[in-house]
């Protein structure tokens, strides 16, 4: 009896805690948006963060995209040829990438490459009193440090996802056409006919924008909110990676169910 009560109590406690934290994040987002003016007025601040989050993630995004495309090419061909429609390989590769794999996998990689770095940087700035010092100089740390990093991530994410998909399509082609011998013309023309700009590509871009907002928000929030010690920073980084992954996958389900109901 007691045990059940305890379990219920801790469950309730966690739920309340989670909701409270969500409200906290929402308020933080409102603050970031409120103080975003500077990120655009002094655009070099944001460009610097696009470089650190976006450009430095390019390599891992491109290489992963290529490998995912190669695997898609192999697996897709293997399945399609059973039904004698191996020319549809281009369609399969392009649709899987633009609708799902591009945004989702790129966002997962982005969270672990760039999101964790942003959390670590902001967390360390907090630990070494740099944020307090800035605040004492009458410079708002949310406007000067947090908002440019947030927007840098939001802008980088869709571009990285697009590059991931492009690289993946190239990987699929590499396996399908020169390696296996699918007809080159059929590969591209079927792809062109089957992929719809609004339905497939635009929805994919919307997904990657949503993921970009989610990952960037989680990364800056965890850094800003961390316990200012070495241990606190390392925990915050872990939380960034874990909650970003969960958020991406859950949001993907929600978005997919709205976008592609058939």
């Amino acid at each position: 009896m007691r045990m059940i009560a305890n379990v219920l109590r801790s469950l309730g406690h966690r739920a309340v805690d989670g909701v409270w934290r969500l409200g906290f994040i929402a308020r933080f987002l409102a603050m970031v948006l409120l103080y975003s003016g500077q990120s655009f007025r002094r655009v070099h601040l944001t460009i610097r963060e696009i470089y650190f989050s976006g450009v430095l993630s390019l390599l891992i995004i491109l290489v992963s995209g290529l490998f995912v495309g190669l695997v898609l090419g192999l697996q897709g061909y293997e399945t399609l040829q059973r039904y004698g429609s191996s020319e549809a390989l281009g369609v399969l590769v392009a649709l899987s990438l633009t609708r799902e794999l591009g945004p989702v996998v790129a966002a997962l990689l982005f969270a672990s490459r760039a999101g964790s770095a942003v959390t670590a940087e902001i967390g360390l700035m907090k630990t070494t009193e740099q944020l307090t010092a800035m605040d004492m100089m009458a410079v708002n740390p949310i406007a000067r440090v947090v908002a440019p990093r947030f927007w840098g991530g939001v802008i980088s994410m869709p571009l990285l996802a697009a590059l991931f998909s492009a690289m993946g399509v190239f990987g699929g082609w590499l396996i399908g056409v020169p390696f296996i011998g699918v007809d080159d013309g059929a590969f591209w023309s079927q792809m062109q006919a089957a992929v719809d700009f609004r339905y497939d590509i635009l929805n994919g871009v919307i997904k990657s924008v949503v993921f970009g907002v989610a990952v960037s928000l989680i990364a800056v929030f965890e850094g800003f909110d961390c316990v200012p010690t070495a241990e606190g920073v390392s925990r915050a980084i872990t939380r960034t990676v874990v909650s970003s992954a969960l958020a991406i996958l859950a949001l993907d389900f929600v978005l997919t169910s709205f976008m592609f109901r058939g």
Partner: protein
Amino acid sequence: MPPSTSDSLVSLRNVRFAYGEREILRGIDLEIPRGKVVAIMGGSGCGKTTLLRLIGGQIQASSGEVRVADKVLKNLPKSDLYALRRRMGMLFQFGALFTDMSVFDNVAFPMREHTNLDETLIRDLVLMKLDAVGLRGAYKLMPAELSGGMARRVALARSVALDPMLIMYDEPFAGLDPISLGIIGQLIRRLNDALGASSIMVTHDVSESLEIVDHVCFVSEGRIVAQGTPAQIRESRDPFVHQFVHAEADGPVPFHYPAAPIAEDLLGAEERR
């Protein structure tokens, strides 16, 4: 004796502050007269940094009143607080330099954020500030390449970058060799007089600070227990002041953080076994 409010840039009236349950400050009364350099001394952990944070508006007193430039800090809107802080400089106990910027950019930071000066002028100003702390030659280095004492001198240059009216130094002498210590002490005095500013200096360095300050306050157990001009302090027969000035181990200043007697702690562990 402390002068009346209008002559004071900073005034604290019966200020109390607690971190959670632990009350750190228990009724501080303090006046910082305009144009003067005031030293605050006290044992480690007695709440000196906390006092500076209260004056800077980073934390709020749980009761009592903190006034800076005739503004009450309690519930001051953020924009007003920022307007006030633009005219304050603070040297943090651990420097708090921006690690992603060079020494030059650190000192230039407040100028770039708050003024429209063009880069050539900023360059001259920054090099002048760095020259004053003896580090003009180090302007290209990153904070990670500085020694502890150098980092604090850069932080000092940064805290006076905008020629503030109130400068707060949290242990400016920590980690300095005797030569730089003397120079920095003189610099603090000269800056104060040249800018017409007021300075608050938290320090443990009794002999150096008695040379340069106008007024000394001793903090203990959350209160100001003694204060006076350096001459009065040197003469003082107050046991607390005497212990501090002559660095004696025995006296009213406790060395230990409050705890149960050590015998109890050690024997207690024995019994539990």
